[in-house]
């Protein structure tokens, strides 16, 4: 894992000291809320429906056990005993006190964490593949490149006041597990025919009120020009992005309005110019970073056998594990979606338990996924049963990954001041309706995603089934969308018809799964059947 150098540490420490002084001045009455708000937002401190909320960045979703333990301790010491893992691989605390924030940030800094650039119109935390460095299908480990981009984008003076927020995802495998094409910039690390490493760039994707899939803008950026090319993309956006209208200010609108080809032309022009300026960090820096991401000391003699006699364990292995590139090891995903639970929430004790298990059984590493789950990337197969037993005892052993119960849900009206409707109770009712993980597994892969408003933090556009909360004359109402997907076959979900009440939407989803099961051919997933038979049979069953 990456280790801060003295510059990284100094930057973060300096920021904590600055913010401590700003908080002091705010409490003393020397700063008004209008003056203070941009300062607190730059440090990840929002005001939400009930209290201040602190969003802590988890760079490319990677954590070690010391960091994870501290996240649990913060939940106990400064919050109400839990945290919420988000679709951007971060963690949010819902009940933070202003007066405690400098201390929290100081504690985070001791384990190389912070909340910088988790808000505002800057380049946000860079997300990546949760299986990076472990996946069987990866071309290479994307994290060194994500780290290089993190260093470039942190405090980049030109890009701290962009037209709007900017989100980057970096992947390096054929399977896209990071919704890469739904980001402002999506980068896929590739190798060309000569075996050289480079980056494929996509630009102008996003969700929110105008969802768009990012088009490919360059097949291959040589690795020694990665930062220069990213800089060119950002410069063109920074220059021409619509600052006049908040709702048209994201890069997706610029790329859409200019057209992909014209945006590419401008980026290439800027890129050619920037190549004359030596802004690219030396390759030695990338090599320095890479040294932090070497494989852990795998045991080449580790047994590849798994004893699956316990049927509950077997179900969990089938649903929640993924093959590892190293024989004898496996990737295990912990579902933070127990039946009837709150998606993405974990108690302080659960967070610390996961930290301990990662320390003992996953080379000290954990990942946060954009589906709001936690990953142990490198578990020895012979340890897996022990790990699962411990998880299960703590309510973390649900075997429902990527099924109808593994719902992504934004905080919605229970916590979010922008919300129109609650998301969490809908998620709870759906997972209860479908019952046990075993029952959920019978329906197979079905990605269900819920947002409490049009901002789409819950990725509803990318759900096989998406749910969008709206305000209908002061009452919560839910629109249902079908056919969205992220990854290689990215598509945007479409609204199926008039909205529903909370119970109505749960009924509608149950009917939709019945239509699927009745029409399913072979190994088809819900999404495949939907794509083959179209929306009509579903509408008929639901609206009758």
């Amino acid at each position: 894992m990456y280790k801060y150098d003295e510059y990284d540490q100094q930057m973060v420490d300096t920021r904590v000291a600055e913010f401590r002084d700003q908080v002091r001045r705010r409490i003393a009455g020397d700063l008004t809320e209008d003056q203070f708000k941009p300062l607190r937002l730059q440090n990840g401190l929002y005001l939400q429906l009930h209290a201040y909320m602190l969003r802590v960045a988890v760079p490319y979703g990677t954590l070690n056990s010391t960091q994870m333990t501290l996240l649990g301790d913060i939940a106990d010491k400064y919050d109400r005993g839990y945290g919420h893992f988000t679709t951007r691989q971060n963690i949010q605390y819902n009940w933070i006190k202003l007066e405690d924030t400098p201390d929290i940030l100081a504690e985070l800094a001791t384990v190389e964490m912070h909340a910088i650039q988790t808000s505002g119109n800057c380049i946000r935390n860079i997300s990546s593949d949760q299986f990076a460095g472990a996946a069987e299908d990866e071309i290479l480990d994307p994290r060194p490149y994500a780290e290089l981009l993190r260093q470039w984008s942190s405090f980049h003076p030109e890009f701290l006041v962009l037209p709007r927020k900017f989100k980057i995802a970096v992947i390096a495998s054929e399977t896209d597990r990071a919704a890469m094409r739904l980001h402002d910039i999506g980068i896929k690390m590739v190798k060309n025919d000569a075996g050289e490493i480079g980056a494929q760039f996509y630009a102008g994707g996003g969700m929110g009120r105008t969802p768009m899939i990012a088009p490919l803008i360059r097949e291959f950026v040589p690795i020694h020009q990665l930062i220069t090319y990213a800089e060119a993309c950002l410069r063109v956006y920074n220059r021409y992005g619509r600052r006049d209208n908040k709702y048209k200010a994201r890069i997706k609108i610029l790329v859409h309005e200019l057209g992909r080809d014209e945006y590419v032309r401008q980026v290439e022009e800027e890129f050619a110019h920037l190549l004359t300026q030596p802004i690219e960090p030396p390759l030695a820096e990338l090599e320095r970073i890479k040294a932090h991401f070497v494989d852990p000391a795998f045991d080449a003699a580790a047994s590849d056998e798994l004893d699956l006699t316990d049927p509950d364990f077997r179900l969990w292995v089938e649903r929640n594990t993924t093959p590892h590139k190293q024989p004898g090891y496996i990737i295990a995903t912990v579902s933070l979606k127990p039946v009837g639970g709150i998606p993405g929430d974990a108690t302080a004790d659960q967070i610390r338990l996961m930290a301990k298990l990662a320390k003992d059984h996953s080379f000290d590493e954990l990942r946060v996924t954009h589906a709001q789950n936690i990953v142990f990337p490198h578990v020895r197969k012979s340890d897996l049963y022990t790990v699962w037993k411990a998880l299960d005892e703590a309510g973390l052993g649900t075997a429902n990954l990527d099924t109808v119960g593994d719902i992504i849900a934004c905080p919605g009206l229970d916590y979010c001041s922008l919300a129109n409707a609650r998301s969490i109770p809908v998620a709870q009712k759906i997972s209860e309706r479908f019952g046990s993980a075993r029952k959920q597994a019978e329906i197979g892969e079905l990605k269900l995603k819920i947002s409490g408003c049009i901002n789409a933090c819950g990725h509803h556009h990318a759900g096989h089934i998406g749910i969008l909360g709206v305000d209908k004359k002061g009452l919560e109402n839910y629109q249902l969308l079908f056919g969205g997907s992220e990854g290689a076959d990215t598509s945007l979900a479409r609204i199926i018809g008039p909205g529903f009440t909370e119970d109505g939407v749960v009924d509608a989803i149950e009917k939709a799964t019945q239509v699927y099961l009745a029409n399913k051919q072979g190994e088809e997933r819900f999404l495949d059947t939907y794509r083959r038979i179209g929306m009509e049979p579903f509408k008929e069953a639901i609206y009758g």
Partner: protein
Amino acid sequence: MKILTGNDLKTGAVIWWTGVGWSLNVNDSTDVGEHGAAIIAREEGAQNVFAAYVVDGVKTDEGVRPSHIKERIRALGPTVRPDLTLKPSDPEAVNWVI
């Protein structure tokens, strides 16, 4: 009726104007009539509250309730965590909101 809400500066807690000060309990709210803006200006200036605004409310048998669901959830706490609401011992508290 018009009631006034905002957040406590140091803790961020949701608070309601009682006529003489601020309370954590929406039931203590008073009707501010036309005076909302003036009270906000004074109270924000004195650092007693921030992000304050006026909302519509109604007097019910159980006490004062904001008219809009968003404000009712703000007043109660997250409906999915009854243990963290104003009425932590009442598992039916959610019905209070909806």
